[in-house]
Protein backbone atom coordinates (compact mmCIF):
# COMPACT_ATOMS: atom_id res chain seq x y z
CA UNK A 1 0.00 0.00 0.00
CA UNK A 2 1.42 3.37 -0.96
CA UNK A 3 1.75 5.96 1.77
CA UNK A 4 -0.92 8.61 2.21
CA UNK A 5 1.64 11.27 3.08
CA UNK A 6 5.24 10.75 2.01
CA UNK A 7 7.66 13.48 3.00
CA UNK A 8 11.24 13.07 1.78
CA UNK A 9 14.09 15.48 2.48
CA UNK A 10 11.77 18.39 3.15
CA UNK A 11 13.68 21.62 3.65
CA UNK A 12 11.88 24.86 4.45
CA UNK A 13 13.77 28.10 4.37
CA UNK A 14 13.15 31.81 4.71
CA UNK A 15 15.78 33.49 2.58
CA UNK A 16 19.10 32.22 3.91
CA UNK A 17 17.72 30.86 7.17
CA UNK A 18 16.84 27.18 7.19
CA UNK A 19 13.81 26.47 9.35
CA UNK A 20 13.34 22.77 8.65
CA UNK A 21 16.08 20.66 7.12
CA UNK A 22 15.95 17.25 5.51
CA UNK A 23 12.85 16.06 7.25
CA UNK A 24 11.55 12.68 6.09
CA UNK A 25 8.67 10.55 7.27
CA UNK A 26 5.77 8.64 5.81
CA UNK A 27 2.28 8.11 7.03
CA UNK A 28 0.09 5.23 5.82
CA UNK A 29 -3.71 5.16 5.80
CA UNK A 30 -5.09 4.78 9.30
CA UNK A 31 -1.70 5.36 10.91
CA UNK A 32 -1.13 7.85 13.72
CA UNK A 33 2.09 9.81 13.91
CA UNK A 34 3.22 12.42 16.43
CA UNK A 35 5.45 15.33 15.47
CA UNK A 36 7.11 16.56 18.67
CA UNK A 37 9.30 19.52 19.43
CA UNK A 38 9.48 22.81 21.28
CA UNK A 39 8.10 26.05 19.85
CA UNK A 40 9.92 27.13 16.74
CA UNK A 41 11.12 23.63 15.90
CA UNK A 42 9.24 23.69 12.59
CA UNK A 43 6.32 21.44 13.44
CA UNK A 44 3.57 23.73 12.20
CA UNK A 45 5.57 24.75 9.13
CA UNK A 46 5.82 21.08 8.22
CA UNK A 47 2.06 20.71 8.39
CA UNK A 48 1.55 23.83 6.27
CA UNK A 49 4.09 22.56 3.74
CA UNK A 50 2.20 19.26 3.59
CA UNK A 51 -0.91 21.13 2.48
CA UNK A 52 0.95 23.58 0.25
CA UNK A 53 -0.01 26.55 2.38
CA UNK A 54 3.37 27.93 3.42
CA UNK A 55 3.18 31.69 4.00
CA UNK A 56 4.63 33.93 1.31
CA UNK A 57 8.36 34.39 1.76
CA UNK A 58 9.00 30.79 2.81
CA UNK A 59 10.14 28.24 0.29
CA UNK A 60 10.10 24.46 0.43
CA UNK A 61 12.46 21.96 -1.22
CA UNK A 62 12.37 18.21 -1.33
CA UNK A 63 9.33 16.09 -1.89
CA UNK A 64 5.91 16.04 -0.27
CA UNK A 65 3.59 13.48 -1.81
CA UNK A 66 0.05 13.69 -0.53
CA UNK A 67 -2.40 11.12 -1.87
CA UNK A 68 -0.10 10.37 -4.86
CA UNK A 69 0.22 14.04 -5.74
CA UNK A 70 3.45 16.02 -5.46
CA UNK A 71 2.65 19.12 -3.41
CA UNK A 72 5.90 21.08 -3.73
CA UNK A 73 5.99 23.07 -6.94
CA UNK A 74 2.46 22.12 -7.98
CA UNK A 75 -0.15 24.65 -8.98
CA UNK A 76 -2.36 25.85 -6.14
CA UNK A 77 -5.52 24.75 -7.96
CA UNK A 78 -4.16 21.18 -8.18
CA UNK A 79 -3.39 20.99 -4.47
CA UNK A 80 -6.62 22.73 -3.55
CA UNK A 81 -8.49 19.66 -4.78
CA UNK A 82 -6.72 17.63 -2.08
CA UNK A 83 -7.48 20.10 0.68
CA UNK A 84 -10.76 19.26 2.28
CA UNK A 85 -10.74 15.85 0.59
CA UNK A 86 -7.48 14.04 1.29
CA UNK A 87 -6.48 16.23 4.19
CA UNK A 88 -8.12 18.50 6.79
CA UNK A 89 -6.69 20.37 9.72
CA UNK A 90 -7.50 21.35 13.30
CA UNK A 91 -5.68 24.36 14.72
CA UNK A 92 -4.30 25.31 18.07
CA UNK A 93 -6.39 28.33 18.95
CA UNK A 94 -10.07 27.54 18.37
CA UNK A 95 -11.23 31.13 18.82
CA UNK A 96 -9.20 32.49 15.93
CA UNK A 97 -9.77 29.38 13.80
CA UNK A 98 -13.48 30.23 13.61
CA UNK A 99 -14.93 33.18 11.75
CA UNK A 100 -16.25 35.50 14.49
CA UNK A 101 -19.13 36.77 12.37
CA UNK A 102 -20.53 33.49 11.11
CA UNK A 103 -22.81 31.15 13.00
CA UNK A 104 -20.91 27.98 13.83
CA UNK A 105 -23.51 25.77 12.16
CA UNK A 106 -22.88 27.59 8.89
CA UNK A 107 -19.14 27.22 9.34
CA UNK A 108 -19.56 23.46 9.62
CA UNK A 109 -21.99 23.42 6.68
CA UNK A 110 -19.43 25.13 4.44
CA UNK A 111 -16.84 22.29 4.15
CA UNK A 112 -19.64 19.71 4.37
CA UNK A 113 -21.39 21.12 1.31
CA UNK A 114 -18.09 21.44 -0.55
CA UNK A 115 -17.14 17.82 0.09
CA UNK A 116 -20.60 16.66 -1.00
CA UNK A 117 -20.37 18.78 -4.14
CA UNK A 118 -16.96 17.32 -4.97
CA UNK A 119 -18.36 13.84 -4.52
CA UNK A 120 -21.07 14.77 -7.02
CA UNK A 121 -24.04 14.51 -4.69
CA UNK A 122 -24.77 18.09 -3.57
CA UNK A 123 -26.26 18.63 -0.14
CA UNK A 124 -28.58 21.59 0.35
CA UNK A 125 -31.34 22.92 2.54
CA UNK A 126 -32.81 20.58 5.12
CA UNK A 127 -30.54 17.63 4.25
CA UNK A 128 -27.45 19.80 4.77
CA UNK A 129 -28.88 21.07 8.03
CA UNK A 130 -29.50 17.53 9.17
CA UNK A 131 -25.92 16.54 8.30
CA UNK A 132 -24.55 19.50 10.27
CA UNK A 133 -26.53 18.56 13.35
CA UNK A 134 -25.41 14.93 13.03
CA UNK A 135 -21.78 16.08 12.92
CA UNK A 136 -22.21 18.32 15.95
CA UNK A 137 -23.71 15.34 17.71
CA UNK A 138 -20.69 13.24 16.65
CA UNK A 139 -18.29 15.62 18.35
CA UNK A 140 -20.42 15.33 21.49
CA UNK A 141 -21.77 18.87 21.58
CA UNK A 142 -24.83 19.21 23.76
CA UNK A 143 -27.97 20.68 22.19
CA UNK A 144 -26.62 20.77 18.61
CA UNK A 145 -29.70 22.57 17.29
CA UNK A 146 -29.21 25.49 19.68
CA UNK A 147 -25.40 25.65 19.43
CA UNK A 148 -25.50 25.59 15.62
CA UNK A 149 -27.09 29.03 15.75
CA UNK A 150 -24.48 30.46 18.12
CA UNK A 151 -21.52 32.66 17.23
CA UNK A 152 -18.02 31.50 18.25
CA UNK A 153 -17.71 34.07 21.04
CA UNK A 154 -20.79 32.61 22.69
CA UNK A 155 -19.16 29.19 23.11
CA UNK A 156 -16.56 27.91 25.57
CA UNK A 157 -13.05 27.02 24.45
CA UNK A 158 -13.79 23.30 24.48
CA UNK A 159 -17.00 23.77 22.51
CA UNK A 160 -15.16 25.87 19.94
CA UNK A 161 -12.53 23.19 19.48
CA UNK A 162 -15.30 20.63 19.01
CA UNK A 163 -16.74 22.85 16.28
CA UNK A 164 -13.29 23.08 14.67
CA UNK A 165 -13.01 19.30 14.79
CA UNK A 166 -16.48 18.99 13.27
CA UNK A 167 -15.37 21.29 10.45
CA UNK A 168 -12.38 19.04 9.78
CA UNK A 169 -14.52 15.90 9.96
CA UNK A 170 -16.99 17.46 7.52
CA UNK A 171 -14.27 17.07 4.89
CA UNK A 172 -14.15 13.28 5.50
CA UNK A 173 -10.38 13.45 5.08
CA UNK A 174 -8.05 10.48 4.79
CA UNK A 175 -5.54 12.44 6.83
CA UNK A 176 -6.33 14.66 9.78
CA UNK A 177 -3.62 17.10 10.82
CA UNK A 178 -4.08 18.28 14.40
CA UNK A 179 -1.76 21.19 15.18
CA UNK A 180 -1.53 21.43 18.98
CA UNK A 181 -5.30 20.94 19.22
CA UNK A 182 -5.36 20.91 23.01
CA UNK A 183 -2.71 23.48 23.90
CA UNK A 184 -5.14 26.35 24.37
CA UNK A 185 -7.49 24.31 26.57
CA UNK A 186 -7.53 23.56 30.27
CA UNK A 187 -6.48 20.11 31.46
CA UNK A 188 -9.91 18.50 31.85
CA UNK A 189 -11.08 19.80 28.50
CA UNK A 190 -7.80 18.59 26.98
CA UNK A 191 -8.53 15.05 28.09
CA UNK A 192 -12.05 15.21 26.63
CA UNK A 193 -10.85 16.56 23.29
CA UNK A 194 -8.06 13.96 23.10
CA UNK A 195 -10.54 11.19 23.84
CA UNK A 196 -12.84 12.56 21.17
CA UNK A 197 -10.07 12.80 18.54
CA UNK A 198 -8.90 9.30 19.42
CA UNK A 199 -12.41 7.86 19.02
CA UNK A 200 -13.16 9.70 15.78
CA UNK A 201 -9.84 8.78 14.16
CA UNK A 202 -10.38 5.11 14.96
CA UNK A 203 -14.04 5.08 13.97
CA UNK A 204 -13.37 6.67 10.61
CA UNK A 205 -10.03 4.99 10.01
CA UNK A 206 -8.34 8.32 9.36
CA UNK A 207 -4.61 8.81 9.45
CA UNK A 208 -3.57 11.33 12.10
CA UNK A 209 -0.62 13.68 12.11
CA UNK A 210 -0.55 14.98 15.67
CA UNK A 211 1.63 17.98 16.36
CA UNK A 212 2.49 18.79 19.94
CA UNK A 213 5.16 19.81 22.40
CA UNK A 214 3.35 17.92 25.13
CA UNK A 215 4.82 14.42 25.54
CA UNK A 216 2.14 12.75 27.70
CA UNK A 217 -0.53 13.95 25.28
CA UNK A 218 1.35 12.50 22.34
CA UNK A 219 2.22 9.23 24.07
CA UNK A 220 -1.40 8.25 24.49
CA UNK A 221 -2.59 9.36 21.08
CA UNK A 222 -0.12 8.13 18.48
CA UNK A 223 1.82 5.01 17.46
CA UNK A 224 5.01 6.56 16.11
CA UNK A 225 6.81 9.82 16.86
CA UNK A 226 9.22 12.11 15.07
CA UNK A 227 11.15 14.40 17.42
CA UNK A 228 12.18 17.72 15.88
CA UNK A 229 14.66 20.22 17.22
CA UNK A 230 15.33 23.47 15.41
CA UNK A 231 14.12 21.92 12.20
CA UNK A 232 16.28 18.80 12.46
CA UNK A 233 14.96 15.31 13.14
CA UNK A 234 16.70 14.05 16.25
CA UNK A 235 14.83 10.83 16.82
CA UNK A 236 12.10 8.76 15.25
CA UNK A 237 10.44 5.46 16.05
CA UNK A 238 7.52 3.73 17.81
CA UNK A 239 6.26 5.81 20.69
CA UNK A 240 6.92 3.17 23.37
CA UNK A 241 10.57 2.59 22.46
CA UNK A 242 11.39 6.27 21.97
CA UNK A 243 9.97 7.15 25.36
CA UNK A 244 11.44 4.11 27.12
CA UNK A 245 14.91 4.32 25.60
CA UNK A 246 15.49 7.82 24.29
CA UNK A 247 18.72 7.77 22.27
CA UNK A 248 19.16 11.49 21.87
CA UNK A 249 19.92 13.99 24.62
CA UNK A 250 17.20 16.32 23.44
CA UNK A 251 14.50 13.64 23.71
CA UNK A 252 15.82 12.81 27.17
CA UNK A 253 15.65 16.43 28.26
CA UNK A 254 12.10 16.72 26.90
CA UNK A 255 11.11 13.59 28.82
CA UNK A 256 12.85 14.77 31.96
CA UNK A 257 11.08 18.10 31.74
CA UNK A 258 7.74 16.35 31.38
CA UNK A 259 8.51 14.12 34.37
CA UNK A 260 9.57 17.06 36.51
CA UNK A 261 6.27 18.74 35.69
CA UNK A 262 4.38 15.55 36.58
CA UNK A 263 6.20 15.30 39.89
CA UNK A 264 5.57 18.93 40.65
CA UNK A 265 1.89 18.44 39.97
CA UNK A 266 1.80 15.40 42.23
CA UNK A 267 3.74 17.16 44.97
CA UNK A 268 6.84 14.93 44.75
CA UNK A 269 10.35 16.41 44.96
Amino acid at each position, binding site marked *: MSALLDIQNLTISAGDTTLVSNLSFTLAKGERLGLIGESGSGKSLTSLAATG*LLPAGLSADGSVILDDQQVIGSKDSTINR*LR*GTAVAMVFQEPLTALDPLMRVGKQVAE*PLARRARRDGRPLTGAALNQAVLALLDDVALPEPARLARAYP*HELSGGQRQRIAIAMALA*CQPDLLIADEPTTALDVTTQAEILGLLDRLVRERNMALLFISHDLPVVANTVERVVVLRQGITVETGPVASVFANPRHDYTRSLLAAAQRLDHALEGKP
Partner: protein
Amino acid sequence: MSTAAVTTPPRRQGKKSLTLWAGAILVGLHVVVGLLSLVWLPYDPNAFTGGRLEGASLLHWVGTDRLGRDLFTQLMIGSRIALFVGVGAVAIGAAIGVTLGLLAAFASKWLDDALAATLDILIAFPTLLIAMLVVAMSDTASLWSAVVALGIALSAIVARLTRILAKRVLVMDYITAARTSGSSWLKIVAIHILPNIWPTLSVNFALQFGLAVIAEASLSYLGLGAPPPNASWGRMLQEAQGTVFTAPLGAIAPGIALVSLAIGVNLLADGLRERIDPTRSTR
Protein backbone atom coordinates in the same frame (compact mmCIF):
# COMPACT_ATOMS: atom_id res chain seq x y z
CA MET B 1 -34.92 41.12 14.46
CA SER B 2 -34.28 37.68 15.82
CA THR B 3 -30.49 38.04 15.72
CA ALA B 4 -30.51 40.99 18.02
CA ALA B 5 -33.12 39.40 20.25
CA VAL B 6 -30.93 36.36 20.85
CA THR B 7 -27.58 38.04 21.30
CA THR B 8 -28.38 41.39 22.85
CA PRO B 9 -29.20 41.98 26.47
CA PRO B 10 -32.33 44.14 26.74
CA ARG B 11 -30.59 46.86 28.73
CA ARG B 12 -28.39 47.95 25.84
CA GLN B 13 -31.06 47.47 23.23
CA GLY B 14 -32.78 50.68 24.28
CA LYS B 15 -29.79 52.97 23.79
CA LYS B 16 -28.88 51.44 20.46
CA SER B 17 -32.41 51.71 19.20
CA LEU B 18 -32.49 55.41 19.97
CA THR B 19 -29.50 56.05 17.70
CA LEU B 20 -30.93 53.79 15.05
CA TRP B 21 -34.38 55.34 15.18
CA ALA B 22 -33.19 58.93 15.24
CA GLY B 23 -31.07 58.20 12.17
CA ALA B 24 -33.81 56.26 10.44
CA ILE B 25 -36.35 59.05 11.00
CA LEU B 26 -34.04 61.80 9.70
CA VAL B 27 -32.99 59.82 6.64
CA GLY B 28 -36.50 58.47 6.14
CA LEU B 29 -37.85 62.01 6.10
CA HIS B 30 -35.48 62.98 3.31
CA VAL B 31 -36.25 59.78 1.39
CA VAL B 32 -40.00 60.35 1.65
CA VAL B 33 -39.69 64.00 0.64
CA GLY B 34 -37.28 63.11 -2.15
CA LEU B 35 -39.63 60.45 -3.52
CA LEU B 36 -42.65 62.71 -3.11
CA SER B 37 -40.90 65.37 -5.17
CA LEU B 38 -41.01 62.99 -8.11
CA VAL B 39 -44.80 62.90 -8.16
CA TRP B 40 -45.94 66.04 -6.38
CA LEU B 41 -44.53 69.50 -5.73
CA PRO B 42 -46.28 72.49 -4.15
CA TYR B 43 -45.26 74.73 -7.08
CA ASP B 44 -43.40 74.61 -10.33
CA PRO B 45 -39.81 75.08 -9.07
CA ASN B 46 -39.05 77.54 -11.85
CA ALA B 47 -42.25 79.57 -11.81
CA PHE B 48 -42.42 82.94 -10.11
CA THR B 49 -45.22 82.19 -7.73
CA GLY B 50 -44.91 84.91 -5.14
CA GLY B 51 -43.28 88.18 -4.25
CA ARG B 52 -39.51 88.44 -3.99
CA LEU B 53 -37.86 87.25 -0.77
CA GLU B 54 -41.11 86.62 1.05
CA GLY B 55 -40.90 85.24 4.57
CA ALA B 56 -42.53 82.03 5.73
CA SER B 57 -46.28 81.92 5.19
CA LEU B 58 -49.04 79.39 4.68
CA LEU B 59 -48.67 79.79 0.93
CA HIS B 60 -44.86 79.55 0.94
CA TRP B 61 -43.76 77.50 3.95
CA VAL B 62 -40.17 78.71 3.96
CA GLY B 63 -40.69 81.78 1.81
CA THR B 64 -39.48 82.61 -1.69
CA ASP B 65 -36.13 83.43 -3.29
CA ARG B 66 -35.07 86.70 -4.88
CA LEU B 67 -36.91 85.78 -8.09
CA GLY B 68 -40.09 84.86 -6.22
CA ARG B 69 -39.75 81.08 -6.63
CA ASP B 70 -41.01 78.83 -3.82
CA LEU B 71 -38.15 77.71 -1.56
CA PHE B 72 -39.90 74.67 -0.11
CA THR B 73 -40.33 73.25 -3.59
CA GLN B 74 -36.62 73.70 -4.18
CA LEU B 75 -35.78 72.07 -0.83
CA MET B 76 -37.82 69.01 -1.80
CA ILE B 77 -35.99 68.65 -5.08
CA GLY B 78 -32.77 69.29 -3.18
CA SER B 79 -33.47 66.24 -0.98
CA ARG B 80 -33.84 64.06 -4.03
CA ILE B 81 -30.64 65.35 -5.57
CA ALA B 82 -28.68 65.05 -2.33
CA LEU B 83 -29.78 61.45 -1.85
CA PHE B 84 -28.98 60.63 -5.45
CA VAL B 85 -25.53 62.17 -5.13
CA GLY B 86 -24.84 60.46 -1.80
CA VAL B 87 -25.94 57.01 -2.92
CA GLY B 88 -24.35 57.36 -6.35
CA ALA B 89 -21.00 58.68 -5.13
CA VAL B 90 -20.71 56.11 -2.33
CA ALA B 91 -21.72 53.28 -4.70
CA ILE B 92 -19.11 54.32 -7.26
CA GLY B 93 -16.51 54.90 -4.54
CA ALA B 94 -17.28 51.50 -2.99
CA ALA B 95 -17.19 49.62 -6.29
CA ILE B 96 -13.83 51.08 -7.30
CA GLY B 97 -12.38 51.25 -3.80
CA VAL B 98 -13.27 47.77 -2.55
CA THR B 99 -12.07 46.17 -5.78
CA LEU B 100 -8.75 48.04 -5.71
CA GLY B 101 -8.32 47.41 -1.99
CA LEU B 102 -8.87 43.68 -2.32
CA LEU B 103 -6.54 43.54 -5.33
CA ALA B 104 -3.85 45.29 -3.31
CA ALA B 105 -4.38 42.96 -0.35
CA PHE B 106 -3.89 39.91 -2.56
CA ALA B 107 -1.25 41.37 -4.87
CA SER B 108 2.43 40.62 -4.84
CA LYS B 109 4.57 42.84 -2.65
CA TRP B 110 5.65 44.98 -5.58
CA LEU B 111 2.15 45.69 -6.92
CA ASP B 112 0.81 46.20 -3.40
CA ASP B 113 3.45 48.81 -2.63
CA ALA B 114 2.77 50.60 -5.91
CA LEU B 115 -0.98 50.66 -5.27
CA ALA B 116 -0.55 51.77 -1.67
CA ALA B 117 1.74 54.63 -2.68
CA THR B 118 -0.65 55.75 -5.42
CA LEU B 119 -3.55 55.71 -2.98
CA ASP B 120 -1.60 57.71 -0.42
CA ILE B 121 -0.86 60.37 -3.04
CA LEU B 122 -4.52 60.47 -4.08
CA ILE B 123 -5.66 60.77 -0.47
CA ALA B 124 -3.27 63.69 0.05
CA PHE B 125 -5.35 65.68 -2.45
CA PRO B 126 -8.48 67.27 -0.96
CA THR B 127 -11.62 65.41 -2.03
CA LEU B 128 -13.14 68.57 -3.45
CA LEU B 129 -10.06 69.32 -5.51
CA ILE B 130 -10.12 65.89 -7.18
CA ALA B 131 -13.84 66.25 -7.79
CA MET B 132 -13.31 69.69 -9.35
CA LEU B 133 -10.59 68.27 -11.60
CA VAL B 134 -12.86 65.48 -12.82
CA VAL B 135 -15.75 67.89 -13.38
CA ALA B 136 -13.41 70.25 -15.22
CA MET B 137 -12.33 67.42 -17.51
CA SER B 138 -15.89 66.55 -18.48
CA ASP B 139 -17.48 68.67 -21.21
CA THR B 140 -20.37 70.15 -19.28
CA ALA B 141 -21.17 70.38 -15.61
CA SER B 142 -23.95 67.93 -14.85
CA LEU B 143 -25.26 66.01 -11.90
CA TRP B 144 -23.69 62.86 -13.29
CA SER B 145 -20.24 64.33 -13.64
CA ALA B 146 -20.48 65.56 -10.04
CA VAL B 147 -21.49 62.08 -8.83
CA VAL B 148 -18.75 60.31 -10.78
CA ALA B 149 -16.20 62.89 -9.66
CA LEU B 150 -17.09 62.48 -5.99
CA GLY B 151 -17.18 58.69 -6.35
CA ILE B 152 -13.66 58.66 -7.75
CA ALA B 153 -12.47 61.07 -5.08
CA LEU B 154 -13.95 58.89 -2.31
CA SER B 155 -12.66 55.61 -3.76
CA ALA B 156 -9.05 56.20 -2.68
CA ILE B 157 -9.99 56.20 0.99
CA VAL B 158 -12.23 53.16 0.55
CA ALA B 159 -9.41 51.33 -1.23
CA ARG B 160 -6.88 52.06 1.47
CA LEU B 161 -9.28 51.06 4.23
CA THR B 162 -10.29 47.87 2.40
CA ARG B 163 -6.66 46.95 1.81
CA ILE B 164 -5.71 47.31 5.46
CA LEU B 165 -8.82 45.59 6.81
CA ALA B 166 -8.53 42.72 4.33
CA LYS B 167 -4.86 42.23 5.17
CA ARG B 168 -5.74 42.00 8.81
CA VAL B 169 -8.39 39.37 8.13
CA LEU B 170 -6.13 37.46 5.72
CA VAL B 171 -3.66 36.49 8.44
CA MET B 172 -6.38 35.11 10.71
CA ASP B 173 -6.42 31.39 11.42
CA TYR B 174 -9.93 30.98 10.05
CA ILE B 175 -8.70 31.97 6.61
CA THR B 176 -5.98 29.30 6.81
CA ALA B 177 -8.63 26.91 8.12
CA ALA B 178 -10.86 27.69 5.16
CA ARG B 179 -7.89 27.19 2.82
CA THR B 180 -7.04 23.81 4.35
CA SER B 181 -10.60 22.69 3.82
CA GLY B 182 -10.32 23.52 0.12
CA SER B 183 -12.16 26.84 -0.10
CA SER B 184 -11.36 28.96 -3.16
CA TRP B 185 -10.13 32.53 -2.75
CA LEU B 186 -13.29 33.94 -4.33
CA LYS B 187 -15.42 32.05 -1.83
CA ILE B 188 -13.19 33.17 1.04
CA VAL B 189 -13.54 36.79 -0.05
CA ALA B 190 -17.31 36.45 -0.30
CA ILE B 191 -18.07 34.61 2.93
CA HIS B 192 -15.18 35.52 5.26
CA ILE B 193 -13.37 38.67 4.20
CA LEU B 194 -16.24 40.91 3.07
CA PRO B 195 -18.50 40.15 6.07
CA ASN B 196 -15.61 40.75 8.46
CA ILE B 197 -14.59 44.07 6.97
CA TRP B 198 -18.16 45.21 6.32
CA PRO B 199 -18.95 46.68 9.79
CA THR B 200 -16.00 49.06 9.53
CA LEU B 201 -16.54 49.77 5.84
CA SER B 202 -20.23 50.55 6.28
CA VAL B 203 -19.53 53.15 8.93
CA ASN B 204 -17.00 54.67 6.56
CA PHE B 205 -19.60 54.62 3.77
CA ALA B 206 -22.04 56.52 5.96
CA LEU B 207 -19.40 59.13 6.79
CA GLN B 208 -18.63 59.39 3.09
CA PHE B 209 -22.31 59.69 2.24
CA GLY B 210 -22.40 62.76 4.46
CA LEU B 211 -19.15 64.01 2.91
CA ALA B 212 -20.51 63.49 -0.61
CA VAL B 213 -23.72 65.38 0.13
CA ILE B 214 -21.76 68.30 1.56
CA ALA B 215 -19.16 68.15 -1.23
CA GLU B 216 -21.91 68.23 -3.85
CA ALA B 217 -23.35 71.28 -2.13
CA SER B 218 -19.88 72.84 -2.28
CA LEU B 219 -19.54 71.99 -5.97
CA SER B 220 -22.96 73.47 -6.69
CA TYR B 221 -22.09 76.49 -4.61
CA LEU B 222 -19.07 76.98 -6.86
CA GLY B 223 -21.21 76.42 -9.93
CA LEU B 224 -19.66 73.02 -10.73
CA GLY B 225 -22.52 70.84 -9.56
CA ALA B 226 -25.98 70.26 -10.88
CA PRO B 227 -26.71 73.07 -13.36
CA PRO B 228 -29.99 75.01 -13.15
CA PRO B 229 -32.89 74.28 -13.13
CA ASN B 230 -31.84 71.48 -10.73
CA ALA B 231 -32.37 72.95 -7.30
CA SER B 232 -29.39 71.71 -5.32
CA TRP B 233 -29.03 72.86 -1.71
CA GLY B 234 -25.58 74.19 -2.56
CA ARG B 235 -26.96 76.41 -5.29
CA MET B 236 -29.75 77.61 -3.01
CA LEU B 237 -27.11 78.61 -0.44
CA GLN B 238 -25.12 80.40 -3.09
CA GLU B 239 -28.17 82.29 -4.35
CA ALA B 240 -29.17 83.23 -0.81
CA GLN B 241 -25.71 84.56 -0.09
CA GLY B 242 -26.40 88.14 -1.12
CA THR B 243 -29.62 88.38 0.83
CA VAL B 244 -28.66 86.48 3.94
CA PHE B 245 -29.48 89.42 6.24
CA THR B 246 -32.73 90.51 4.58
CA ALA B 247 -34.12 86.98 4.08
CA PRO B 248 -32.15 84.61 6.36
CA LEU B 249 -34.56 81.74 5.76
CA GLY B 250 -33.18 81.31 2.25
CA ALA B 251 -29.82 80.26 3.71
CA ILE B 252 -31.00 78.65 6.96
CA ALA B 253 -33.46 76.24 5.34
CA PRO B 254 -31.07 74.49 2.91
CA GLY B 255 -28.42 74.59 5.66
CA ILE B 256 -30.66 72.69 8.05
CA ALA B 257 -31.67 70.26 5.32
CA LEU B 258 -28.01 69.54 4.54
CA VAL B 259 -26.96 69.05 8.15
CA SER B 260 -29.99 66.95 9.07
CA LEU B 261 -29.31 64.50 6.25
CA ALA B 262 -25.60 64.22 7.07
CA ILE B 263 -26.29 63.64 10.77
CA GLY B 264 -29.15 61.26 10.03
CA VAL B 265 -26.99 59.02 7.86
CA ASN B 266 -24.27 58.88 10.51
CA LEU B 267 -26.70 57.99 13.29
CA LEU B 268 -28.31 55.35 11.09
CA ALA B 269 -24.94 53.79 10.27
CA ASP B 270 -23.91 53.73 13.90
CA GLY B 271 -27.14 52.08 14.96
CA LEU B 272 -26.98 49.56 12.13
CA ARG B 273 -23.37 48.64 12.84
CA GLU B 274 -24.22 47.74 16.40
CA ARG B 275 -26.95 45.50 15.07
CA ILE B 276 -25.01 43.70 12.36
CA ASP B 277 -21.89 43.08 14.44
CA PRO B 278 -22.82 40.25 16.83
CA THR B 279 -19.52 40.39 18.73
CA ARG B 280 -20.31 43.90 19.97
CA SER B 281 -23.35 42.85 21.89
CA THR B 282 -21.44 41.15 24.70
CA ARG B 283 -18.80 43.79 25.20
